[in-house]
């Protein structure tokens, strides 16, 4: 059994890319993609599929790709995944499909994500109208992020009339406001949304479900047969430390929204953003990496991650941590901010931190960080970004009778298919689980779509 090394996807030079918003990974050439696809063993019982939250038929699409049947490869992916260009870029494949690949035992697993991205990019925008014959039912979706789009795509493919309501003026949710261009270009998201439009999905922006109309109104007056709530996590969390309301302090959501959605990095943008010289980000997830790397791209001299555990516990993808390091991000590990010190105009100028050590394991099984007495130190800081997760947004639950939430305010689902305590109302993604990944939200959107089809008598399991 030969196991040739994985063909890496070319990347931009770190020093050059750290100052632009151009995508870091450049994409495969045809020869690279086909070469990588040919490494696949085409297992009879493919383990990779078990690792995929949306169950893409991975061996089948890779086989078509290895035989240069690019459109067929695309169709296979699209059958279960409406956003392959997104997933190929931002899924944690190393923990999912690729972690289970047999080739990984003795060498490198197949680069499933890179191949998915290649197939998607190659077929982008190239398809004709794909509208299915109507089955005479209509479903509303609250939120156009990954959960909502996955749900919409799955339903539309089966002839359901779908309207997606989005609170912001652009479609895509976190894919548009949250994930920076250098990791996921907005044009890629746009192309996938255009395809959903060609499938007949209707998008209504500037529409806040629970405010512009309630769920009851959508069901009773507007005649929707069901509604899927994929409203996202919402509220950013802030640490309870002095100075947290100073000027120059952002949640990662606000900072990234200003930059990605409102394009504050462009000359002449109407939305301002503070371009710091010393950017400090609190947190260790993908959002923290996105924020700190954005800080560099806005011109910071230094950009630092402050994280209270070690790199080993960081929730961010290994690839993102690696990219951040390559670009020059500093990591203050085992450290926690205590206080923000302000200048006389009310702007943050320094962050005082304390060193941490790992103590006993807590309920989550992770070792609890504890402060090391007397180890305080300060970092210069004129932009401080908080990326320590989110809480549930209460807009939908407050406005919907009979929709139960848990102690944390997340919508309660009563089975694995996203059914809620209220008839005809389904939910999935961060609003149910709290902050998670794009692909888990997509999986939840797709599962709810299956339940909706079943409950509407449209013959799904």
């Amino acid at each position, binding site marked *: 059994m030969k196991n040739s090394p994985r063909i890496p996807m070319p990347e931009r030079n770190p020093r050059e890319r750290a100052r632009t918003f151009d995508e870091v990974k450049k994409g495969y050439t045809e020869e690279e993609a086909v070469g990588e696809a040919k490494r696949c063993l085409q297992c009879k019982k493919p383990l990779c599929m078990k690792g995929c939250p949306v169950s893409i038929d991975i061996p089948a699409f890779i086989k078509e790709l290895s035989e240069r049947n690019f459109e067929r490869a695309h169709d296979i992916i699209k059958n279960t995944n409406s956003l392959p260009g997104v997933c190929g870029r931002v899924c944690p494949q190393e923990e999912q499909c690729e972690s289970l690949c047999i080739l990984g035992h003795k060498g490198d697993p197949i680069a499933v994500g890179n191949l998915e991205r290649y197939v998607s990019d190659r077929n982008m925008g190239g398809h004709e109208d794909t509208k299915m014959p109507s089955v005479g039912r209509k479903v509303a979706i609250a939120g156009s992020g990954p959960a909502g789009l996955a749900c919409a795509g799955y339903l539309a493919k089966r002839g359901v009339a779908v309207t997606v309501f989005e609170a912001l003026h652009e479609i895509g949710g976190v894919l548009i406001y949250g994930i920076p261009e250098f990791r996921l270009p907005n044009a890629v998201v746009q192309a996938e949304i255009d395809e959903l439009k060609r499938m007949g999905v209707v998008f209504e922006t500037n529409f806040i479900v629970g*405010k*512009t*109309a309630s769920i009851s109104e959508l069901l009773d007056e507007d005649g929707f047969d069901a509604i899927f709530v994929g409203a996202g996590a919402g509220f*950013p969390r802030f640490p309870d430390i002095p100075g947290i309301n100073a*000027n120059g302090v952002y*949640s990662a959501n*606000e900072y990234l929204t200003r930059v990605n959605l409102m*394009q504050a990095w462009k000359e002449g943008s109407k939305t301002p953003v503070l371009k710091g010289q010393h950017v400090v980000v609190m947190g260790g997830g993908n959002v923290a990496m996105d924020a700190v790397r954005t800080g560099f791209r806005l011109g910071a001299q230094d950009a630092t991650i402050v994280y209270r555990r070690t790199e080993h516990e960081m929730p961010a993808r290994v690839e993102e941590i690696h990219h951040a390091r390559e670009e020059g991000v500093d990591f203050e590990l085992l450290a926690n901010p205590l206080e923000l010190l302000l200048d006389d*105009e009310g*702007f943050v100028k320094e962050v005082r931190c304390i060193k941490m050590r790992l103590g006993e394991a807590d309920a989550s099984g992770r070792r609890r960080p504890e402060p090391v007495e007397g180890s305080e130190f300060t970092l210069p800081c004129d932009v401080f970004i908080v990326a320590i997760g989110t809480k549930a947004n209460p807009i939908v639950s407050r406005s919907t009778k009979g929709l139960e939430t848990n102690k944390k305010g997340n919508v309660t689902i009563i089975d694995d298919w996203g059914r809620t305590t209220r008839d005809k109302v389904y939910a999935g993604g961060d609003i149910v689980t709290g902050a998670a990944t794009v692909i888990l939200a997509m999986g939840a959107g797709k599962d709810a779509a299956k339940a909706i089809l079943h409950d509407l008598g449209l013959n799904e399991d």
Partner: protein
Amino acid sequence: MAEILQISNLSEHIYRVRLVAPRIAKRRKAGQFVIVRVTPDGERIPLTIANASAEEGWIELIIQAVGESTRVLRDMQVGDHLEDLAGPLGRATKVEKVGRVLCIGGGVGIAPLRPIAEAFKAAGNHVTTILGARTSDLIILRDDMDQISDELYIATDDGSAGEKGFPTDIFARLLDTGNTYDEAVVVGPPVMMKFTSLKTLDAGVPTMCSLNPIMIDGTGMCGGCRVTVAGEPRFACVDGPEFDAASVEWDDLLNRLSGYDKIAERNHTCRIGTDEK
């Protein structure tokens, strides 16, 4: 896209804009606001809903043309469209029959006060209104407020309308002459809200204020509008915009509101059009 039905000038720099918005008109309640983007490359700005007709499907916004977006909006014509309009956002004012309600409005803050006063009146309260501004031209919605209120008083800094002085002077006199109030609502520039509510609270009147922090999405996602209320971080867009004035940490709010202005000042000294602040 939201079509402009009417646009008129209420005073120098203050404009009333009526927009087609049937969904919002149907659901909005006193105290709520919308997020507007005037042009395709514009910023997202929160504006309070000053009036609406559910039957005719319109809402009215009152804007002070101080920033770039509001100046562009001021120069638009009937039949033009705003790029985006989303709402109604925020929680509605908690309106109950409490007895005697005092409504104090300053400058362009009179606009959000109008539906609140109207709702308190409709709930069967005796409504006393005090309006304040620098000068008579800046007293907006005078006739509307006169109709809604049982009593109306006006204070101007220069004495060009009503009495010379501040709304707090009139409030003090009303107290002195034996008037009592069960609740107060104060809406206006943050500094005015801070000092006015200190007086009403001092007199033992529970006081609500409507805050106007910097906002982007308006649905709780960005956290930019956080204010410290009773020692806890609260989001004005979802938990507010109205809060108990006694619990608001005003200096936090004032500092954050001035942040981008200070940055702009550092970067260049042009002050065109900012004189109204």
